[in-house]
Each structure stands twice: as C-alpha cells, then as structure tokens.
C-alpha cells in the first residue's frame, strides 16, 4: 500500500524504518531505487546469474534490514557489499562445476557493437546502460572492472570502493588509473583509426570531385 504522500518526499530514514517493519511500499521504493545499479553491477561480471544473485541479495537485505543502522550511502555500500559476497560465492561454486553459462547475445554483443569505423558510435547516447557498461569494462582486468563499476555504476568514492573491495584507497586509485590508461589506449587507437578512415573517405570524395 502506497502512502498518501509521494515517496520522494519521504526521507531515507523513514523509508528504511518502514521497510524494516515490512511495509510493502517502502520495500518497493528501495527496490526501485537500488535494483538497477545492483543488477548492472552483477550483470557486468556474471551475466548468466545476475538476476538470481540480485534476488538473493534482496532477500538477505530484508533478513537483516531491522538491524541496519546508517544513512543512504551506508545502505548502498551495504547492498553492494552483500552483492559482491554473493558474487564471490557463486564464482566459487562455478569453479567447482567448471562450467559457466553465457548467453549468446552477450557473446555476440562485442561484435555487433564494435567500435572500429562504426558510424553508430556517434550516437552512443542512445545505447542502453548495460551495453555501455559492457563496452567500458570489456578489456579491463577483473579487479579494474570491479573498481570502475563501483565508481561508475555504484557511484562510490575511492574510500567506499576500497571498503567494499577490502583494499586500501591507494590500491583502488592505482586500479582506476590503470583502467583509464587501458581505456585511453583502446579508444585512442580506435579514434585514430576512425580519423584515418574518415580522412581517407574525405580524400576519396575530394578526388572524385576533382575528377569531375
């Protein structure tokens, strides 16, 4: 049952308190606010099991919600910490199974959305959030991808990322720095190749005009 006044007008502690009492509207508000970044974070690392892991995370949050104390940032950090723990557990189980299901659309995504010389690159604003995230962390190492995801998708600062990843802030900064350098190398080459191709097209067009 939704409250009479809009949810946005309620403060986060009020929503959190109502959710701790099992209020349906408060739980829905929390879910709608934090499910998208959590699901994107999980999908970027475990595409096949992200939805199930997200459900487990929310149930775990509900079981311990009455004992949670903190603000909105703390709740978000707590939520992603639980998600990361579930992700690690899933990877341990997957390591025992030695199989990892991967949807075909995700495997073909890099090919369909290749950057080299694709004119659609110019309209990246129309890309879906998950596709943009996949492009962003495609060539990064797992630790770099996780740090970037927490910074970009989760919206955490370096100390919060360090707390979630159980690393030092300096280590997180180094990981983000190396990730940015790798992105620069990748997109710089693509930009160079794109410029060269564009220049070649322009030269061809110029030669055609001159020939005419």
């Amino acid at each position, binding site marked *: 049952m939704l409250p009479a006044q809009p949810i946005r007008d309620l403060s986060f502690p009020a929503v959190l308190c109502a*959710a*701790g*009492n*099992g209020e*349906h509207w408060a*739980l*829905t508000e929390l*879910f*709608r606010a934090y*499910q*998208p*970044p959590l*699901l*994107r974070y999980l999908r970027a690392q475990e595409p096949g099991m992200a*939805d199930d892991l*997200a*459900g487990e995370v*929310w*149930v775990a*949050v*509900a*079981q311990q*919600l*009455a004992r949670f104390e903190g603000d909105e940032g703390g709740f978000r950090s707590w939520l992603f910490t639980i998600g990361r723990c579930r992700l690690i557990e899933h990877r341990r189980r997957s390591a025992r199974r030695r199989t990892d299901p991967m949807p075909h659309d995700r495997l073909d995504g890099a090919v369909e959305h290749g*950057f080299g010389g694709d004119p659609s*690159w110019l309209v*990246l*604003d129309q*890309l*879906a*959030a998950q*596709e*943009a*995230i996949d*492009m*962003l962390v495609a060539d990064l190492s797992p630790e770099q991808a996780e740090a*970037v995801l927490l*910074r*970009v*998708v989760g*919206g955490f*600062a*370096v100390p919060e990322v360090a707390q979630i990843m159980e690393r030092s802030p300096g280590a997180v*900064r*180094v990981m*983000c*720095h190396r990730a*940015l*350098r790798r*992105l*620069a190398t*990748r*997109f*710089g080459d*693509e*930009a160079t190749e794109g410029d060269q191709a564009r220049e070649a097209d322009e030269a061809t067009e110029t030669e055609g005009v001159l020939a005419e």
Partner: protein
Amino acid sequence: MTPDDLWIEMERFDGAHADRVWDGSAATEDAPAWYGRVATLLRAAPAPATAEELTGESEIVARMQAAILEPATDDDLAGESDIVSRMQATILDLALPADGDDAGDTHCPRHLRAAPSAPGARRRQGIRLVRRMVAVKATAITTVVAVGVTAAAATTGIVATVVMPALSDRPPRETAEYKPPAAAESESSTDRSGDTDRGASEGTGDEPVVAMDPDEPLVCMLDMDCLLHEVDVAAAAPSAALPSTTPSTTEAPPATPSTTEAQPATPSTTEAQPATTTTTAPPPPTTTTTAPPPPTTTTTAPPPPPPPPPAEKAAPAPAETMSAPTGDAGSATGVTLAAAGGTGSEPSPTG
C-alpha cells in the same frame, strides 16, 4: 611525457579531477580525443532503470516482506539452543577463575591451557563413572546369560534329536538259553561275551552274577545303588531254587561227609549258585584232608552212628574253613566287580 599521459596521471593524484573523469564531466578542452567516447559510455552507464531491469519486482518484494514478517522457521533455528548453550558455557568457562590444577598453566597461552573445571565437575564425573561401570556389568551379565541359555538349548536339542533316538532305536539283545551247569560250565566262562576275559582272569567262577534285564532303562544300569540292590535281591533269592540247581552237589561225594558239610558252609555263596550253577562245587581232595582219619577212632570208640543228614551236619567249623578262600565280603566285592563289568553284555541265565 605527452600531455595525454599527464592528463591521465592527474587522475591518480587529483581526487577532484578523478571524480570528474569518472563522472564523464571532465573539461573537454583539456581532455584527450579518446576521452569523448569514454565520457559517452560513462554517462550512459548510470542511466535510469528500464522496465526489463525491474522485472520480478513484485516477486522479490514479496519475498523480502515474507523474510521480514515471517518468523524464522524451525530449520533455521535448528541447533540454536545448542549453539547458545555452548557459547554460554564457553563464556562462563572463560570467566571462571582457574583452579589449583591450572595454576601451573598460567605461563601457557590461553588457547593451550586446560579447560577450567566447573564446580561439582568431579562429583559429576564420579557419578558418570559409576554409571558406566554399572552399564558395563549389566551388559556382561546379559551376555553371559544369553550365551548360557543358548548353550543349554543347543545341548537339549542335541540330546533330544540325536542321543535319545539312537538309544531308543537300539535293537534288543538276544537272551541266551539256560544250560545245565555241568554242561555249560566250560562254556559259561566263554559265553559271557566281553566280560569273559575279566571273569576268567579274576577267577570268579564261584561269584554270583547279577541278573539284569536288557529292557531295563539305561539310567538304572548305570546307577550303582541299583546294582547293589540287584545284588541284594539276588542274594536274598528263595532257597527253593537250591534243590533244583544243586543236584550235582548232592551227588558228588556221598561217602565223605565233609563234602556235604562244605555246601552249607557257604550259604551266601551257594545262594547264588542257581545263577552260576556249577561254579561252587568244591574239590573232594580238600575236604578229605581236613577230616580226621577214621581208623584211629575205630579202635577206641564204638562204631560211629549213622551219618546225619547233610543239612544237619552243616557245622560252622568247616564253614569257616570253606569260607576262608572266598569270604562274604570278598565275594560281595567280587560280585560287584563282576556284575559291574559284565552286566552290560551278559545275558541273564534266569531269564
């Protein structure tokens, strides 16, 4: 270092610059050319939620609400009391001061020390020890009783199924016909089957033989009292059998009164003669030596009166001389031995 490298290095040491870079809001005029594409991706990443991402909202919210409102199930609380009690015991053990036994362990780390004993632990340990001893003894007694009952049952079954049928199926022994003593004297010692050798070697030709019924139960044959009873019965047999069984003795030496005296001299042995017939006949030469010579008496005394009847002339003196070789006690013992040795296979002459 190129300007692009310097711009990247600033992200490492300048927090504000790093926030702008990862937000996709860094100044484009200072940023390298490739940052435009990265900034586009960074801005697209935290896009508003789509309907696909909120799929399953009602289900997950319902599960969350159920997890909050419903109490924990029994499975979730399984072992909770045990864990809580162990935690409490651990805390109490740590809180208790060390006993005198643990005084020497103070130099050891706490995780290597022996667990401190709670008050009354020794008493509880003693009770536990007594209980264990009682349980062990009860188990031992039960085992012994079970084994004994099993053994008894097995023995009973063997006796009932093997021994008794074997005894009951045993064919009855043939009874030898009675033969006259004179004719059967030589054969009697050999016809006594397995006891022949024994009887001959012991010279028990004058010993009475106990008559045993082959159909008599085995337990009676093995009973010594029963055998003695049979001997007594045989010894107390009616004297009417004597005339019929001792015709040869009356006929043997009528001229010598000593021979007639010899027969009543061993009443106990002659009573058994109906069973043995001829074995008790004394040799005539032994009697003649004991008698005084008649010629010496005829010169000084009137002629002797007619000889008295043999039964009346049975004087005790010759009886003593005659009973000496055999003896009642010795004969009884001899009879007992002979009977004990030959009752099993010896046929009863009296039927």
